[in-house]
């Protein structure tokens, strides 16, 4: 019994800490931008768009939203989305719209899509599931 408790203590106090470092490295938000003909910017996000993720990309996302009128945000590799991440997307979308531009959200997973629809984010940027539809949404 004592051994079992010691193992649990070890597991909870130490192992999480080291696994945590790996987890942070593995899940840290990444943002890459590719520009296509016609001035379409594709922002590819990878990882967790939580508080830490939103903080990491906020400035870069804001710069891209401020500089482009046609933006596709590829969410295929986003594994998690919480309200601060939603905030990042909405602030960017408003910036694009304020210039008369359009944005679209591409390929969110089921859970991420539920967050987007529950918050009304999809009324600001349509959710689409293929690249051709995304191009059409931002160019139409």
């Amino acid at each position, binding site marked *: 019994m004592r051994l079992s408790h010691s193992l649990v203590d070890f597991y909870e106090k130490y192992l999480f800490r080291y*696994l945590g470092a790996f*987890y942070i490295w593995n899940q840290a938000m990444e943002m890459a931008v590719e520009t296509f003909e016609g001035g379409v910017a594709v922002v590819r996000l990878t990882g967790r768009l939580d508080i*830490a993720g939103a903080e990491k990309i906020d400035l870069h996302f804001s710069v891209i939203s401020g500089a482009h009128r046609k933006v596709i945000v590829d969410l295929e590799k986003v594994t998690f989305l919480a309200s601060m991440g939603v*905030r990042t997307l909405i602030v960017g979308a408003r910036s694009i719209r304020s210039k008369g531009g359009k944005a679209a959200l591409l390929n969110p997973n089921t859970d991420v899509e539920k967050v987007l629809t*529950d*918050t009304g984010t999809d009324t600001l940027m349509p959710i689409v599931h293929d690249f051709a539809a995304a191009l059409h949404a931002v160019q139409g």
Partner: protein
Amino acid sequence: MLIQAELGELVRVGNWIEALAGRLSLPPATVFAMQLCFEEAVSNIVRHGQIAPAGGNVQVRLGVERRSGTVIVTIEDHGIPFDPRMEAAPAKPSRLEEVAIGGQGIHLMRKFAQHMDYERGADVNRLTLRFDVPRGAG
């Protein structure tokens, strides 16, 4: 699990839930919902409840209990009284410009947890969330 009311602690919470998911046979959708609610609840405590009556930082105690067909999550803190159920849901946008930039956290908790309960006792806020685990999942 006991954490400080600091946003940096959310990484440790995320790892904890990932580890629990395997031990408790939780399906990915339930893990997502739990992580979302923990993130929103803890960030609310950090924003609204940082005043510890005895001084120092507020601590937050997180609990997860697996029952048949459900997971019960408890979040307790010693911060100022705060009942998230009293927060008004953001208005449903009728125009694009009305989509709320903030205030979505508690709204999302309502959407992703099947039930939310709150009680205040002995200077502790106690939030209880229930997540139904789909039959056959996990």
